[in-house]
């Protein structure tokens, strides 16, 4: 549904996006994550036809973004980082206007406006002026305008920024409900959001993709394999555990008092072997667990090791 190949964008001497390659299948939700200034907004603006790319190709909904921008624009719903509202207009007039410019057929416009208002929880607000809305409601109107023409592709730039936790959950649920055959790209730097809503993740830093794939893959990539934790009490624990067949690396962590905490890298699950070893050696076991790295850890691990790895690429500045 969305295909990006070797996309580059240069603002004067600044390389905002470098050699981006990714693909989003029909009906899936892609999380676009990265620190501020990583190039998320730039990429989304290119995909929506707002900005031209310096080089590279992009197809959205089967059309080349640079050759047939109008066809792409008809099929994409876009929520910019700041909801694009006219403070002088009322919610209803505004959505009707967007329906008009997004070419919703005249006889369907009122119905569609009503439907999207219902969908984002704005029923009964059509006469309110946009300028008088709170941040959360502005964001809802922003989402409603992106949906009003029932687009195949939704591109949302930080859809939950500035919302309270309840509203954030609401938007996430909405995104999941919208799913189905709609393709969604959403950018965020709130990782919980990606975990809650997305099938795939593209992690971007300094304009480059540093990790992509399913959530599991990205986590895996970040931590270099599955990690286990153990807290044991006994003699020569570290040596004995390291000698096990399953373990590849053992790292002692600062434990508390009598118990020794270990971080264990392993090819296959070492927990049964450790348990057996503990029983045979008469060790005390307080914890034995598989550590699932959070996306935060993955993010920090990947982004944290980035600058040194990619500095040569920015020498053009």
């Amino acid at each position, binding site marked *: 549904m969305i295909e990006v190949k070797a996309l580059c964008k240069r603002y004067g001497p600044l390389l905002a996006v470098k050699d981006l390659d990714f693909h989003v299948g029909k009906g899936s939700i892609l999380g676009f994550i990265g620190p501020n200034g990583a190039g998320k907004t730039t990429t989304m603006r290119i995909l929506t036809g707002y900005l031209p790319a310096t080089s590279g190709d992009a197809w959205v909904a089967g059309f080349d973004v640079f050759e047939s921008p109008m066809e792409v*624009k008809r099929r994409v719903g876009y929520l910019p980082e700041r909801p694009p509202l006219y403070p*002088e207009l009322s919610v209803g007039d505004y959505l009707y*206007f967007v329906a008009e410019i997004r070419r919703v057929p005249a006889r369907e416009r009122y119905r569609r406006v009503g439907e999207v208002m219902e969908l984002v929880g704005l029923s009964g607000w059509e006469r309110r002026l946009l300028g008088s809305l709170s941040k959360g409601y502005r964001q809802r109107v922003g989402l409603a305008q992106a949906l009003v023409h029932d687009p195949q592709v939704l591109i949302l730039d930080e859809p939950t920024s500035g919302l309270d936790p309840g509203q954030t959950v609401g938007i996430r649920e909405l995104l999941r409900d919208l799913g189905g055959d709609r393709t969604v790209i959403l950018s965020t730097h709130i990782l919980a959001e990606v975990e809650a809503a997305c099938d795939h993740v593209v992690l971007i830093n300094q304009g480059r993709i540093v990790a992509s794939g399913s959530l599991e893959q990205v986590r895996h990539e970040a931590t270099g394999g599955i990690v286990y934790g153990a807290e044991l009490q006994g003699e020569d624990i570290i040596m004995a555990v390291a000698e096990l067949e399953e373990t590849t690396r053992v790292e002692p962590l600062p434990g508390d008092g009598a118990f020794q905490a270990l971080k264990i890298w392993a090819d296959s699950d070492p927990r049964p072997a450790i348990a057996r070893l503990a029983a045979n050696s008469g060790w005390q076991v307080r914890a034995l667990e598989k550590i699932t790295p959070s996306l935060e850890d993955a993010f920090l691990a990947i982004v944290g090791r980035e600058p040194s790895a990619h500095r040569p690429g920015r020498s053009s500045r």
Partner: protein
Amino acid sequence: MTAVWAIFKKELRIYFVSPLAYVFLSVFLFLSGLFFYLGLTVNGEASLRVMLGNLAITMLFVLPMLTMRHFAEEQKAGTFELLMTSPVPLGSLILGKWAASIVLCLLMFLGTLIFPAVLAYYGDPDWGVMATSYLGLILCSFAFCAAGLFASSLTTDQVAAGLAGIIILLPFWLIGSATSFTTNETLRQILESAALLTHLRGFTRGVIDSADLAYFASFSFIFLFLTYRTLESRRWR
């Protein structure tokens, strides 16, 4: 075409839900009333010559204020991004906005029609001259709106856009008087043909000259075209 119509309606709505249109219309009608009165008392003739002449210079200052909002505000508020990511060709956007400001101008001319009515009641005005004077003024307002839109596309600051509009238009007014300072015949002719007053004069005398029509048409076209190019080039920066 749907896009032009949608933009046009939106712009008019924004004009009339904000105080802008009302302030603008009242200021304009007040000044026209003043000029009408002065024209009658000073010259004592049953014509709108003085009033219409003064309205042209008033428009030069007032119309840029009316159009300054258009692109400056869209860009500042981020709504330009909405328009440019919707299937709206840039040309339709500009035409829609131009049409909305033109309609507002026509409304304000409609308000001044009370003065010819007064003249007709008390005297015997020359209707032909009156009609061509109005035509000239209307064409002039179209051209000023186009220049105002261009000024608005240059910056994201409304006030700067308004001032820029006046600064762009003022030379076209002033070079009319500048012609008397030069003895070079070629230069004088160039200045004269670029000056607004030269081309308004025919209309105020009841003459519709195709050269004058062409002047105002190309004036509008050039500024609309420049607006298009400016907005287009913004995307590449």
